[in-house]
């Protein structure tokens, strides 16, 4: 006798997330070949959206979010597939696809963030407490990599300034440093490069207090996939992507500029500020344009905007500074 009714749809018939996303890409491709010339990439995207809407991608790791006025509008979101399979996270390998394959071993629970340096009282925050510190907002940001590619990502988090207030830094604190998780037994791929681990990034205090700086816990309404910096990272949409430290375990408040990983590796290529700036080239390539991820090769190229288009909110942080010298 059967106890309980079998589900109407056998689980074998449910399209996997992966297949579903692949189908979207195939559809996009089929459409783009069908129209051949004339149609813009955006129109193809819209047509694909109508035929195969982006709905059922949310799993059981959903985060409740509220809307934010700081969210960017008028941009086509990069697909979850691309955001989670095109990553620079060198602790898990240097190829773009490596983190998606390898980051599963990152132990994201239990997780704490140690706060020390120039603070009233050093303390340790548990990730669950940080998730509840402020309401989580959805913030769509353009994401511009120093390698001249870009995405549009719907992040989930709240302003870093809220967290910094909870840290009680002393007024002497002029800089804040972020250290990423590192364990050479877990991140075996870290030796693929000669980088000195753990990954370190830093900001001037006023930059960190800018409301655009986001303490980030999720994307696409779900908790961060490991390869995108789970369980907690920062996102600084007006700076090149490498400034946005992932999988943060320690935050230090300092009176001096902290050493930062890529700046240490090659100071002439990666400045401490690293604000997105189309007028200052990387020594090895131009930063005037960028390739938008997820579009066909003939539609990828677009102009790079000063401060990645966030000048209205952040330009005042740098008044009087020579941005060519302080790249």
């Amino acid at each position, binding site marked *: 006798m059967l106890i309980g009714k079998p589900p109407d749809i056998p689980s074998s018939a449910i399209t996997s997330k992966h297949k579903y996303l692949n189908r979207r890409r195939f559809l996009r491709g*089929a459409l783009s070949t069908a129209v051949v010339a004339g149609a813009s990439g955006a129109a193809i995207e819209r047509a694909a959206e109508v035929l195969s809407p982006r709905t059922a991608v949310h799993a059981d790791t959903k985060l409740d979010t509220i809307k934010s006025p700081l969210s960017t509008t008028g941009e086509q979101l990069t697909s979850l597939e691309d955001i989670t399979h*095109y990553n620079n996270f060198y602790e898990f390998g240097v190829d*773009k696809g490596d983190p998606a394959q390898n980051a599963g071993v990152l132990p994201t629970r239990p997780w704490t963030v140690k706060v020390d340096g120039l603070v009233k009282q050093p303390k340790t925050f548990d990730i669950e407490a940080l998730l509840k510190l402020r309401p989580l907002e959805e913030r769509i940001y353009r994401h511009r990599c120093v390698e001249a590619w870009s995405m549009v990502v719907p992040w989930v988090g709240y302003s870093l300034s809220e967290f910094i207030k909870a840290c009680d830094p002393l007024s002497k604190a002029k800089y804040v440093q972020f250290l990423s998780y590192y364990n050479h037994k877990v991140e075996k791929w870290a030796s693929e*490069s000669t980088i000195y681990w753990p990954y370190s990034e830093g900001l001037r205090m006023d930059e960190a207090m800018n409301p655009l700086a986001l303490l980030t816990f999720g994307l696409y309404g779900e908790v961060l996939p490991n390869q995108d910096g789970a369980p907690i990272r920062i996102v600084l949409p007006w700076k090149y992507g490498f400034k946005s430290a992932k999988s943060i375990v320690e935050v230090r408040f300092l009176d001096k500029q902290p050493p930062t990983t890529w700046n240490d590796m090659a100071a002439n290529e990666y400045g401490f500020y690293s604000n997105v700036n189309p007028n200052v080239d990387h020594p090895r*390539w131009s930063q005037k344009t960028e*390739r938008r991820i997820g579009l066909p*090769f003939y539609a*990828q190229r677009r102009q790079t905007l000063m401060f990645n288009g966030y000048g209205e909110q952040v330009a005042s942080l740098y008044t009087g500074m020579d941005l060519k010298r302080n790249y």
Partner: protein
Amino acid sequence: MNRSTIILLKSLTWAACLWPLALLVYGAVTNTLGADPTAKITFTTGYTTLLLLILSLGVTPVRSLSPRLSWLVRFRRLLGLFAFFYGTLHLLTYVALYAGFDIHAMLADIEKRRFITMGVIAWLLLVPLAATSTNWSIRKLGGKRWNRLHKLVYLAAICGVIHYWWQVKPGVLSPLRLTIVLAVLLFARPVLAYIQRRKNPVTA
């Protein structure tokens, strides 16, 4: 090695050499080149160029291991020409998808960016080799001169590998494998020549 086996092997070599391009064309048509198609096309064409150059450089050392491998030399030209073909595709990818056919941008890049300068030098070194790849050219130039000219392929491969190192971020070791293979092939020549001389000191 009889004629029909050579024809079969040549056809297989053609198919293998065209395979990376076929994958790119299929990917472009179905839009399955991954998240960053431009980067994928650039990397595939560049990497295939270096791989084929190194394979063509491997022919002579491998052949000298045994007289029974002498037929391998009949594949060297094919590999070399395909290397030039992919190198040209790689260059065109840069011209179209990076520089947007803007001649001023290209000249500025060549002047300012040493990895681009080095890549262009590597390609320019391959041009006279591709141009003199016919039997007619060999006859016209004479074996000795032709051989001397085609030694440039070593320089082209070295420039190509330097181009690769200068393109990746400092500290990233991805070009290491190809570099080691090229280094082994470069050292193999004098070592094999030395062994040959010890074996029959009368000749040469």
